[in-house]
């Protein structure tokens, strides 16, 4: 800590010391007001509410830009000076980190580092867990030190992204329009839903959904779904191209809002979907289920990365922001939409016992569950799809991935779209 404050003194003067050591923004309140940090990321976590709360709690301004996953990748990789904080997903990190546009983060400055769940540190949710296939967050979570462009295999004290948000994804369905139980990923290609199915048009995620379906159908046995061979890629696309030509799909979606509209308008009754999108459909009064499936979930995780050009007082503000992020308010905000926080135990302080029981422990709600915007999500007596945190995150079958054969896969994806 002594070193740290000395460095801060040199950089930004005595005023900054208070913040980086004590986390007390009042001391440099005047200067911090002038700081603006520009954050961009996907629509799931780039919420104006967070920006407002940052202004209230920390004093500086956080500008939010929400983009789709591909635009996020592009911006992080090509325009390092256009942002201060990149809120990106771990699979995107695999593409972006080697460009050197982000700086590694010193975990000794992260107050709640010890409380971050194991998934992001050694890959294990519980000591007995089996690590899922794909680009698991811990495999791209650490580097040897500042300036290193290759990932480390284990915890090193230098993190690429500070994990903030993650979830286990599965298919979303319209129970009112399907009218029977859905149990397996194979249902996505069931001819019963011809012209009423959808997947997403983001290749790195879509291919994983495809793989879950093909494996569930028993058509393909993958060595590693998260790192397919060319033959496996060909076989996967063959199955989906055939289905596409037969008119199985209504549309492919690329942004959160598109998926909500497809589902809410009834154009689609079964599709791969994100948890808060389900929440958004439900809050319009339309029944929608985030259907747990017997083959397990396709998971993703997101985190905050710092731009390489961030330094001085801005850098201190960014660390402040990260510490604040993990301190629970955002965690509670996100968990009440169905995501998980990287540090669940601090989120607990910002949730009611009923909410914690419902969202984290998978218990039946004692009273109505509302989302952070006040809309009723679920009635008393119901419990969350998929059960508790450990049930859900414990049955993750794969993580969104960037494979060695990514370029080949992308070309095949283009063929699939054009077919």
């Amino acid at each position, binding site marked *: 800590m002594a070193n740290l404050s000395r460095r801060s003194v040199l950089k930004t003067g005595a005023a900054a010391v208070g913040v980086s050591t004590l986390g007390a923004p009042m001391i440099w309140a005047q200067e911090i007001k002038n700081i603006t940090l520009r954050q961009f990321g996907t629509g799931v976590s780039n919420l104006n509410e967070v920006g407002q709360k940052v202004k209230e709690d920390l004093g500086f301004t956080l500008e939010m830009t929400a983009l789709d996953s591909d635009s996020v990748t592009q911006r992080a990789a090509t325009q390092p000076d256009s942002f201060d904080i990149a809120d990106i997903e771990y699979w995107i990190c695999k593409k972006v980190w080697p460009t050197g546009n982000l700086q590694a983060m010193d975990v000794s400055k992260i107050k709640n580092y010890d409380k971050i769940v194991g998934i992001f540190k050694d890959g294990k949710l519980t000591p007995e867990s089996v690590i899922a296939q794909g680009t698991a967050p811990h495999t791209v979570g650490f580097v040897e030190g500042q300036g290193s462009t290759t990932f480390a295999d284990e915890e090193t004290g230098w993190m690429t992204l500070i994990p903030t948000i993650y979830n286990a994804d599965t298919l979303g369905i319209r129970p009112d329009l399907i009218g029977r139980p859905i149990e397996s990923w194979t249902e996505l290609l069931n001819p019963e839903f011809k012209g009423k199915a959808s997947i997403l048009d983001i290749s790195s995620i879509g291919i994983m959904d495809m793989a879950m379906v093909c494996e569930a159908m028993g058509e393909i046995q993958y060595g590693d779904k998260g790192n397919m061979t060319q033959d496996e890629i060909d076989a996967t696309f063959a199955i989906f191209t055939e289905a596409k030509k037969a008119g199985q799909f209504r549309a492919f979606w690329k942004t959160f809002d598109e998926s909500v509209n497809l589902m809410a308008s009834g154009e689609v009754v079964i599709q791969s979907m994100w948890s808060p999108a389900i929440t958004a459909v439900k809050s319009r009064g339309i029944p929608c289920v985030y259907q747990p499936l017997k083959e397990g979930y396709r998971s993703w995780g997101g985190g905050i990365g710092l731009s390489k050009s961030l330094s001085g007082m801005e850098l201190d503000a960014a660390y402040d922001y990260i510490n604040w992020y993990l301190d629970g308010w955002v965690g509670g905000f996100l968990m009440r939409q169905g995501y998980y926080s990287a540090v669940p135990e601090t989120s607990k302080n910002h949730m009611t016992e009923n909410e914690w029981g419902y969202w984290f422990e998978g218990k039946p709600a004692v009273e109505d569950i509302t989302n952070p915007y006040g809309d009723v999500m679920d009635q008393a007596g119901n419990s969350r799809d998929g059960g508790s945190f450990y049930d859900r995150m414990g049955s993750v079958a794969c993580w969104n991935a960037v494979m060695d054969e990514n370029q080949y896969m992308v070309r095949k994806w283009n063929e699939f779209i*054009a077919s």
Partner: protein
Amino acid sequence: MTDLASSDRSTTSTAPRARTSGLSTRMIGWLQAAPLAIVLACFLVLPIGMIAIVSFWGATEFSIYPAFQFDNYRFLFSSPVTYSVFLNTFKYAAITWACSLLIGFAVAYFLAFHIRSLHWQIGLFLLCTIPFWTSNIIRMISWIPFLGRNGIANSALISWGVIDEPLDWLLFSDFSVILAFVHLYTLFMVVPIFNSMMRIDRSLLEAARDNGASGWQTLWNVIIPLCKPGIMIGTIFVVTLVMGDFITVRFMSGSQKANVGRLISNDISLLQYPSASATAIILLCTVLIVIAILLRFVDIRKEL
């Protein structure tokens, strides 16, 4: 432009210092052309040159590196996707062109020949531009709830008893893509055709009638030939816009169809800039060839 230049020449020649006029006329000509030339060089020629250069570069997953190789083009020309996507692009361009020409011509004809008062002509013409006060994307997206399975179109047709089941092909199909294109770009056809029509000497039409031509004969033998420059300018607008537009294709087909623009945008979003550049260069050449062919039919410079 010729008017401007000649009037300038006359003013300089009548100027008192006549001995420098030979040099200064040329200088003034250059100076007059310079601002546009500089703007075009900086913002058109230079970027296109850069794209052309990058199209020969190589790329890995994370970076692009300068090189001179034909890999991007080789892959492009060897991939069946390229051909099917270009074919699709031409299909969209051709159908959109035909529809917007028919509608645009009819609208322009109505405005130019059926509306007698100039005030009404201008008023109705402005009316045509009102949709352009909102953004392209909004006008396009508003079709989605209209055409959807439970949308206004389907529910109207069902309540009229025309159909029993909602029509699926109304949305997320070639139909919806072309519909949106026609909706978005027909005005680009109306404006130049209307402009040509307003220049037609009305006495020519009277002469045609006096000589016993029927309405159709007048249309075919007098009006259409005189509107050719307008039609051609409109065609160039519509064809180039449709060939370059990827966002309409993406939204209106629900990402299920692709044209060249989408291929490029996919490449860009996956950081494959050299490959995207190569595709862009091929598209640019294709569009230039199409325009060259179109200009064969009409000498625009003469007709204007």
